[in-house]
Each structure stands twice: as structure tokens, then as C-alpha cells.
């Protein structure tokens, strides 16, 4: 339900937001000497062929945050087959594929396979695993055709979304059942022997509701390992789900949705076995995932314009990935939004979440006793104050209690100034925290075995620390959005982020461990909070319509990270700064030709990853080129062919896979057919 608060400011700012994208065409048309449409007759108007330019009402142009929205239109034009590939189009989001089913995705640094400062939600349902505070991207299944938009906030969102919304928030919002009425069949196949298919039907449920049900299957073939051998990262998944939306009364809406998703995956890993030390093995291993969730959202609008929303969900996953990892999550959320006088718009909410997590002994890793139940209680309050007609101040804070660090608060202030109709200047200050994960406090990991001078073997082990604290961010940002010309708009944000209590591991005195026989000298490291960092950089995006049927969207991001570790203890940061690119640049072009033809091209540049402190080899910079041709043969049938990574036969995006041996990203061509009826 928290996405509602994201939507809310939008309503007041849409006039400008839309202008950003729509006006371009307005001007371009005037330039081309088009006749004045208002002098057209009704009959003439009816005969005009229209283009639905993506409206981008979601541009949130008066938000005091660095927001980017991927629209359904953008998704269709992208030719992407999965959510990580879609996120590449957001300047400042760092997407790196490790193998065909594993990604490292982060915003503003600290990227890793287990990146843990990002909050990811699907329709307001949190999908990060509290085991390591990160996201298993392979187990997040959403048919791309059903996504209405993906809202991405770069920077902290803790005031509303709470712990973990440190470096960014990604909310994937699906279409309502009313928007997906009728049948939909899609099928696709690719040069890498991939396959995908969606079968969906949406209909009416009585006079007051709509529903859709869908089934989906996909398959991705293995790609070669960076070591040259054949990979084992092929996978396939099957999903079934439904969504229903009901108008209980003119003032009440109810949404109920759920889905089941299962995958069978492979990976090549290099690992030790706790029970068979000290040899290091490289082996092909299976992953099996089964997830399910069900969710209900009830919204009531009062006659005075205020509204209340109650949301509840249950989510469960069962993952075999070196160990059996089972998580149950129950979440109950209440939110109230109202106006107080003419100058205050207030949103307040309360969340209760309970998680039940179990993790059997893994090859290298053990989590405490193997079972843990946690509760999280939080409440937030946010007031948007209209100081003058052109100046608004938003103040708020989250107050949260978790089972690891107890009470936490996450305040923020945003000042938004709109000096002219199509210009917004904003500044924000906020504090956000990442609460420790189960891994941080209780893990027991055999990281390496080392031969010792006396001929025996030592084990490098990393232990959790129950005293570990929340990582803290204090963040200052400024931003400017402008409709420079009628067909040219841009958005730039500068950020200055100070991190404290960043997680580190520090070596401690060696000790002898008698079991398993013959006994080992353990070289232990413990988690702690000795790290600091100062990040700064910019996110830039622009949209230029050279003509009503052509849009160019360039983007650029820069990130500089200075990190430091306190003391002379030899402690190391858990997240290596070298794992995030300093520069990313991109340009996307979308053509809408007559007769239903579309041609889209995008190029992405990612600068080199440095050799970090831990495990990391350098990854060279790369440029990725994707293109797509689509043709709507009729209103109901569309064909498309999309090529990805066309510049080079293959490239590497990330090498620090922990145990996972990365694979090459290969050139790929996919043909798709979509039939709506």
C-alpha cells in the first residue's frame, strides 16, 4: 500500500508532470504548420489517427526526491524479458548480471550479489529476504505485460518505507484487472534457445468487479562460464496467478491478488564443504524455488476527500540453494491520508510484520540455530505544508522497532520550489538506516581454507555479531527539473551521502577448533560497524521529442565513493566500493511509425569495475546495444523482434559472485508474438 503515498503527491503535480512529456509533441506540431485542431469538425476529429504518447503522469515532477518511472510503454519498447533488464533504463541504477539467474543490482554504490541497501516491492509487498536484507531477483515473478509502471526512487525513502530503503526504493506496480480485460496470449523464442509464453484472461466478476487469471512459462538456456567451460546456469520457471478488483461501493475498492511461482535453476559454484574440509570444490549445483503470496487491499474514500487504506499480505518462499531456506512473512498495514486546513496534507501509517525464517546447514554457512522469528512494528507521519503557492515543505519521520537494534527513527525534510510552471527546484535532507540481517548477527561461514607453515590447515571463518548495529545514512540532495523547451525536458539530481556504522569484518585472535577431526586452526573475523563512506554524484535524465513520433531519452549517472575503516584492526568493508561503476551513460530512441510500426534502440555504457578489496577482479567497461522492431498487424496481434547485446558476441558484467562462477552475457535475438482478444 505504500505505493499509494508515492502516487499521492503525483495527483497535485500532474499538470506539470504531463507537460514534460506531452508538450513536446504540441510544439513540434505547431512547428510543422499543422492546422489548428480546434477548427476541425466533430467528424474530422473522429477520423484523426491518434498516438497515445506515454503520459508519464508519474513523472512526479514536484517530488522532492530523485524519481524515475518506467511506464508500460517503456516496457513494451524495451524488448526486455525480465525485470533486471528493464531496470537498466533508469539512470543511476546499477544492474549487473552474474549468471543467467543471478544479478547484482544496487543504486548509488555498494553493489554485490547480496546488495542490501535497496527496498524492492511488488504492489507494496516487500520482497527482500530478511536473511541477508537482499533480493533474490530470480524468484520475483511478474508477467511484464501486467506491469503498469515501475517507480524508482534513487536515494533514501526511509521516512515512508522504513528500514532498508537506504539507497533506493523500487516499486513494481501491476495493472488493475479492469485494465487487463479480455484474453492475452504471448509466445516468444530466442537464438539462445530461450522460450517464454503467457496465457491470460480477464473478465467481469458480477457487476462490481473484474478479475484476471494467468499462467506463464519461461526457459533460459545456459551460457558459457567466464573460465571458458560450459555453464550450468540455464533455468526455467512456471507461474500462475490472479488479481481481482472490486468496487464495493462508490467509496470503497477492494483488490485481492495472489500467485504461485516455481523455478528450477542451475549454477556453477566454488565452495568448501563444512563436513568435508579442507578441499575447495567447483561443481554444478541445482537451485529450486517455490514461492507463493496472497494479498488484499481495501481503500475507503471519505466524503471530505480523505482516504484510508488497509493492506494485508502473506508471502512464503522455499528455496533450495545449498541449504533449505524457508521464509514466511505476514504483514498488516494501515494508512490514512487527509487534508488539515488549506495548507497541510498529511499521510500517516502503521505497519506490523512478522517473519518466520528457517535455514538448514549450508555447504559453507550456518545461520545460528537455524530458525528465527522476528517482528517489526513501525509508524510514520508526514506533513506536506504549502508555505506559499510556489513553495512547499514536507516533514516526516518513521518510527520503527525491530528485533535486532530496537527503536529506530528515520526523519526527512523536503523543500520544493516551483518558481515557474515548468520548473521545480528541490532540496532534501534525510536519515535512513539498514537494520542488520539474520546473517549479520548469527552467521558462521567458512570463507577459505589456507595451508599453514606447519603443514596443517587453517580455516578463515566469518562470524556474525549480536552486537552489530544498524548502518546509517545521512543524505543531502538537491534537484532541478525543467521543461527547457516544449519538446525537451530534463531532470538532474546531485547527492551527497554520509554513511556511518557501515558493516565490516575484522580479524580476531586465532583459536583451535577440534571438530571436525583432525581439528583446525580458525582464523576468525567478526562482523562489526567500523566503516564510513562519503558518496557523491549525480543522476541525470532527459527526454527530447524531435517529432511527435520520435523520442530520445538520454541518461547519465556518476558516483564517487570515499570509504574508510576505523582503527588499525585490519577490518574490511563488507561491500567493496570497487563493485559499483563510476559512470553510466545511456541513450534510448523510440520511433512510432504509422501503420503500427515501432523501432526502438538503446545503448548503455557502464564504466569499469575496479578490483575491490575482496574477491574482486576488474571488469572492463562495456557498451550494450539493444534494438527492437515491433509491428501491430491488427489491433489484436503484434509481432516484435528484439536483439540484445548486439555489439559484441559476449561480455562480462560482474565477477564478484561470492561462490557463484559468473557466466558471459551473450548476444541474443528474440522473436515474440502477442495476441489480444
Amino acid at each position, binding site marked *: 500500500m505504500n505505493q499509494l503515498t508515492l502516487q499521492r503527491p503525483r*495527483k497535485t503535480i*500532474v*499538470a506539470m508532470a*504531463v*507537460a*514534460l*512529456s*506531452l*508538450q513536446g*509533441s*504540441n510544439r*513540434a*506540431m505547431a*512547428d*510543422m*504548420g*499543422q*492546422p489548428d*485542431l*480546434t477548427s*476541425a*469538425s*466533430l*467528424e*474530422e*476529429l*473522429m*477520423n*484523426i*489517427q*491518434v*498516438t*497515445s*504518447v506515454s*503520459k508519464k*503522469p508519474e513523472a512526479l515532477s514536484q517530488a522532492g526526491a530523485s524519481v524515475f518511472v518506467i511506464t508500460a510503454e517503456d516496457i513494451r519498447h524495451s524488448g526486455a524479458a525480465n525485470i533486471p533488464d528493464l531496470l537498466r533504463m533508469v539512470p543511476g541504477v546499477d544492474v549487473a548480471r552474474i549468471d543467467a539467474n543471478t544479478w547484482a543490482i544496487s543504486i548509488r554504490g555498494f553493489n554485490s550479489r547480496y546488495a542490501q541497501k535497496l527496498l524492492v516491492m511488488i504492489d507494496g509487498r516487500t520482497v527482500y529476504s530478511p536473511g541477508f536484507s537482499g533480493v533474490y531477483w530470480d524468484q520475483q515473478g511478474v508477467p511484464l505485460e501486467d506491469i503498469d509502471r515501475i517507480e524508482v526512487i534513487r536515494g533514501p525513502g526511509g521516512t515512508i518505507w522504513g528500514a532498508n530503503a537506504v539507497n533506493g526504493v523500487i516499486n513494481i506496480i501491476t495493472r488493475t484487472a*479492469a485494465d487487463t*480485460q479480455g484474453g492475452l496470449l504471448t509466445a516468444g523464442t530466442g537464438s539462445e534457445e530461450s522460450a517464454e509464453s503467457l496465457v491470460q484472461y480477464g473478465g467481469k466478476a458480477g457487476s462490481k468487479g473484474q478479475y484476471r487469471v494467468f499462467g506463464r512459462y519461461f526457459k533460459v538456456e545456459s551460457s558459457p562460464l567466464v573460465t571458458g567451460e560450459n555453464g550450468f546456469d540455464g533455468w526455467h520457471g512456471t507461474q500462475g496467478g490472479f488479481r481481482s478488483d472490486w*468496487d464495493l461501493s*462508490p*467509496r470503497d*475498492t477492494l483488490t485481492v491478488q495472489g500467485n504461485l511461482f516455481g523455478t528450477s535453476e542451475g549454477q556453477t559454484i566454488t565452495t568448501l564443504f563444512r563436513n568435508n574440509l579442507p578441499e575447495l570444490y567447483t561443481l554444478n549445483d541445482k537451485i529450486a524455488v517455490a514461492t507463493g503470496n496472497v494479498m488484499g487491499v481495501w481503500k475507503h*474514500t471519505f*466524503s471530505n*476527500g480523505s482516504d484510508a487504506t488497509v493492506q494485508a499480505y502473506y508471502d512464503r518462499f522455499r528455496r533450495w540453494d545449498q541449504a533449505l531456506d524457508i521464509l514466511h512473512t505476514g504483514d498488516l498495514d494501515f494508512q490514512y491520508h487527509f487534508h488539515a486546513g488549506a495548507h497541510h496534507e498529511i499521510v500517516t501509517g502503521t505497519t506490523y510484520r512478522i517473519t518466520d525464517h528457517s535455514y538448514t546447514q549450508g555447504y559453507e554457512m550456518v545461520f545460528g540455530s537455524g530458525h528465527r522469528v522476528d517482528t517489526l512494528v513501525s509508524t510514520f507521519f508526514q506533513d506536506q505544508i504549502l508555505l506559499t503557492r510556489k513553495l512547499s515543505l514536507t516533514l516526516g519521520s518513521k518510527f520503527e522497532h525491530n528485533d535486532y537494534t530496537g527503536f529506530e527513527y528515520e526523519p526527512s525534510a523536503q523543500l520544493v520550489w516551483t518558481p515557474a510552471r515548468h520548473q521545480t527546484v528541490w532540496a532534501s535532507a534525510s536519515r535512513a538506516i539498514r537494520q542488520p540481517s539474520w546473517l549479520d548477527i548469527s552467521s558462521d561461514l567458512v570463507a577459505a581454507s589456507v595451508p599453514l607453515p606447519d603443514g596443517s590447515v587453517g580455516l578463515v571463518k566469518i562470524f556474525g555479531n549480536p552486537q552489530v548495529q544498524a548502518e546509517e545514512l545521512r543524505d543531502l540532495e538537491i534537484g532541478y527539473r525543467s521543461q527547457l523547451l*516544449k519538446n525537451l525536458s530534463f531532470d538532474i539530481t546531485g547527492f551527497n551521502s554520509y554513511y556511518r556504522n557501515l558493516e565490516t569484518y575484522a580479524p580476531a585472535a586465532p583459536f583451535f577448533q577440534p571438530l571436525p577431526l583432525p581439528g583446525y586452526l580458525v582464523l576468525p573475523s567478526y562482523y562489526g560497524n567500523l566503516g564510513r563512506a562519503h558518496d557523491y554524484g549525480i543522476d541525470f535524465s532527459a527526454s527530447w521529442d*524531435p*517529432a*511527435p*513520433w*520520435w523520442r530520445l531519452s538520454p541518461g547519465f549517472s556518476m558516483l564517487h565513493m570515499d570509504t574508510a575503516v576505523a582503527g588499525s584492526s585490519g577490518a574490511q568493508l563488507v561491500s567493496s566500493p570497487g563493485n559499483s561503476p563510476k559512470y553510466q551513460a545511456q541513450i534510448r530512441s523510440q*520511433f*512510432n*511509425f*504509422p*501503420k503500427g*510500426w515501432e*523501432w526502438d534502440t538503446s545503448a548503455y555504457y557502464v564504466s569499469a569495475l575496479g578490483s575491490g578489496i575482496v574477491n574482486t577482479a576488474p571488469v572492463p567497461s562495456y557498451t550494450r546495444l539493444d534494438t527492437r522492431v515491433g509491428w501491430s498487424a491488427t*489491433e489484436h496481434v503484434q509481432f516484435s523482434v528484439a536483439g540484445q547485446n548486439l555489439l559484441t558476441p559476449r561480455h562480462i558484467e560482474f565477477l564478484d559472485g561470492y561462490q557463484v562462477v559468473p557466466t558471459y552475457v551473450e548476444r541474443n535475438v528474440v522473436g515474440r508474438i502477442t495476441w489480444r482478444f
Partner: protein
Amino acid sequence: MALLKLPINAGRLAVLVFTAPLVQSGSGQPVPEYEVKAAYLFNFVKFVAWPPESLGSPSDPLSICTLSDNPFGDALEAALAGKTFSGRPIVSRQVNGAAQARACQILFVSAAAERSFRAMASDLKGAGVLAVGESEGFLSEGGVINFKLDSGHVRLQVNIKAAEGQRLHISAKLLSLADVVKK
């Protein structure tokens, strides 16, 4: 307007684009949806008669309002710039809530604003407001005219009952071009 219907060969266009991207040749191009919708809203002024008490004094402007959400960008304002009807200027503005909406002659309800409209529809009864929407269920929620996208064309649907409820008289000319529903 015949120009707008001129078909353009996609292949030729592609060449054109690469040789001279800004060449003034796009006269046969499709038109952005909201420019057409804005032109429709202006046109409705000529084909709808409002109850006199909802029009105020003869020099008062006619207001075409957007509810909560303005998907037009500048297109509506541009379409109405300098326009008058029977000596009254025609203006556009954004409104929130029933109290403000009652002062409008035309109220455009975007798909995003449909829920807000639904919650306040009963408060607009009899106010002489021509509610124009663009969502499937709009007419059954008290809307008078609905824009329906049909193969890339903007078509009209009219709810006669709702028009009567608002004491609006819609000309036969408009009705003859629209899908008329009675409920």
C-alpha cells in the same frame, strides 16, 4: 484536415528521419491523443446547451476543468487560447473536489481521476456539469460523455440519462456521431 489522413510510407519516413530529422514533413502523422481530446472539449461548447443558472452572468467565462489530474499538459490551454463562445472567454483550470467542480461547465475526468470522480459523482447531481471521461465504466458512474479509443481513433459515447440529470441539452448532431447509451 485531409492532410492528417494522408498515409505515410514507413520506409520512406525512416530515410527521411535519418537524413533530416527536423524536416517539416510530418503532416500525415498521427496526432497526440490529448490534442484531439482537447479539440473535442472545445467543440462540445458548441454542441451542448447548459441550464442558464449554471452559466452565471453573460460575461462570465466558460470553464473547462480537469479533475485532480491534467493529462493534457499545455495542450488544453493552447487549444483554448483566445477562444470565446457567445462573447464568453473559454478558460481551463484544474479543480479538486465536488465544490470546485460544480462551478465548471465541462469537467474532464482522466483515467487516473476516475476514482475521485466516482466518490463525488452524487455531489454533482443537477449542477449542470458536463462530465467527460475516458474510462470504461465512466458512463455508469454518472459521466455524460466518454472518450473511447477505437483502432487509434477517439470516438464518443454519450449517456442520455446522465445528461438529463445534469439538465444539459446535447445537440442531435453530436448524438448522431456518438454511441448513445441509456441507463
